[in-house]
């Protein structure tokens, strides 16, 4: 069942359409990645979900929200660059966040302790936030988004600003969190989405270019790839040049240099047997022959640039 249903969401700033009629649904308990290059409209979309921006047109529907209830009470939001009151300690900020969500006195304090422990900055909880490092602020930002046990956790580029170690740690944390709640996070790094998510929404110029479960997308768009590399001696080069001249029905896409060949093919069995036969007949010095599949990276690049 869909937790959030977004229909024809549009936001215009002046004459630019930052988000242009986006529709999608996020299933209960799923982890969805909003994937796209910078400026594609990811942040604008998330900000509209959290209520910080009013959509120009379109609808956002939240299941399980009592009529008249504030949508903000069920969403935990971590902005791209979280800001805090530097004069507060991490613990104080979390307590403030908890109280704003309606937790009372002791309960808010207890929840802050739990969360600091959870995100691994319990030791720095009583220190002033002004002295926190970028990674610690990101963790604190994650903690304040979790304070009311949100139905939807919306994270805007949660790992983009971190160093490799911090990035790994936050990703690990997200991996645990996705078992507890529904997560939507935006990123421009395909790898992060692939690692964590069930669903991807690839956006480009404010529109959804491709969406679906990662497994389905992979299955649908994955094509066999054949990679050949030769020793770059004269015989092989000549053979390759000749080979290139002939049209073959199974080739979908071809890239070739003088010593190598990369083919995306429709029928891998025919392609393989034909090629192997020709290679041995012409005594080509093969260095490497690899049969594989197109990666999501290829697809991503094709979708966002094509």
């Amino acid at each position, binding site marked *: 069942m869909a937790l959030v249903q977004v229909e024809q969401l549009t936001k215009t700033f002046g004459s630019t359409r930052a988000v242009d009629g986006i529709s999608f649904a996020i299933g209960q308990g799923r982890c969805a990645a909003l994937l796209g290059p910078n400026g594609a409209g990811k942040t604008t979309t998330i*900000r509209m979900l959290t209520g*910080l921006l009013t959509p120009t047109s379109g609808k956002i529907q939240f299941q399980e929200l009592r009529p008249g209830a*504030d949508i*903000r009470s069920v*969403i935990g939001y971590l902005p791209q660059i*979280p*800001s805090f009151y530097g004069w507060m300690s991490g613990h104080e900020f979390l307590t403030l966040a908890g109280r*704003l969500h309606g937790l009372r006195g002791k309960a808010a304090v207890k929840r802050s302790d739990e969360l600091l422990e959870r995100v691994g900055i319990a030791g720095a909880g009583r220190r002033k936030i002004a002295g926190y490092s970028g990674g610690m602020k990101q963790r604190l930002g994650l903690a304040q988004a979790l304070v009311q046990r949100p139905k939807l956790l919306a994270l805007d580029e949660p790992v983009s600003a971190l160093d490799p170690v911090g990035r790994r740690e936050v990703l690990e944390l997200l991996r645990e969190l996705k078992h507890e709640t529904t997560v939507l996070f935006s990123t421009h790094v395909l790898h992060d989405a692939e690692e964590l998510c069930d669903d991807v929404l690839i956006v480009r110029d404010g529109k959804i270019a491709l969406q679906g479960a990662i497994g389905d997308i992979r299955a649908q768009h994955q094509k066999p790839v054949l990679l050949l590399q030769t020793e770059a001696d004269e015989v092989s080069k000549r053979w390759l040049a000749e080979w290139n001249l002939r049209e073959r029905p199974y080739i979908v896409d071809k890239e070739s240099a003088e010593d190598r060949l990369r083919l995306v093919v429709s029928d891998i069995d025919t392609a393989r047997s034909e090629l192997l036969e020709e290679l041995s007949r012409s005594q080509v010095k093969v260095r490497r022959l690899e049969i594989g599949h197109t990666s999501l990276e290829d697809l991503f690049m094709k979708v966002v640039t094509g």
Partner: protein
Amino acid sequence: MNTFFVLYRKELLEMLRNYKWIWVPLVFILLGAMQPVTTYFLPQILAGAGNMPEGAVIEIPTPQGSEVLAQTLQQYNTLGVLIITLSFMAVISGERNSGTAAMILVKPVSYTTFVLSKWSAMLSLTAVAFTAGYAVSLYYTNILIGDVGAGGFWKSLLIYMIWLLFVGTLTVTSSALLRSPGGAAFTALGATAVLAIATSLFPKAMAWSPGKLTGLAAQSMQTGLWDEKTWMVVLLSFVIVALMIMISVLALRSKPSLDN
């Protein structure tokens, strides 16, 4: 209501941590104490200044206690107002510029509550600082100059407090409308000055203007008067303050953070 108190407490704590609770009252107390003290010692000060021919006799009529307190209010007209606008010029724009406003406003907090918590904190600090300063002024005047009627004191305190509330609200609204804190302070100070000048230039047309509050406060100090005209000015001031709060809420709602 609960979120209001949570945010209000946060504002008070912030003003404690950045020492506003110390220096704003301190300035008001110093200004308040200085007026009666310098008035009392004026003959000695002049005598000590030199340049006087041998045997010159200085005779300055000692003013009445109520006059001294009215002069204290004049001090607050310039320096007090300046301190208030400078302390609150970034009250909303600061949070919007740093992004903390967005962090708070994604929680179930109404925009009105957010603005009101800041406004109330501003009012609390202003009220405490002014009352303390004015009370110290009363204390020294009573000791050094002469007794002042309590009735006039309380009335003038109340009227002048409404003036400071007006100035403070103007600062809050400016900081909700403008990005730069300096611009907000300048706007608030400029509007205050324009209002004061316009009120004295067009006494008929501006009969109920909040700019009248300073004059009324000094007047009620000396005469203990609180007539129908005073009521109208006070009433209109409250209406304008309420309007300015609404404008601040609308300004914040249309732009809760910079990056949109």
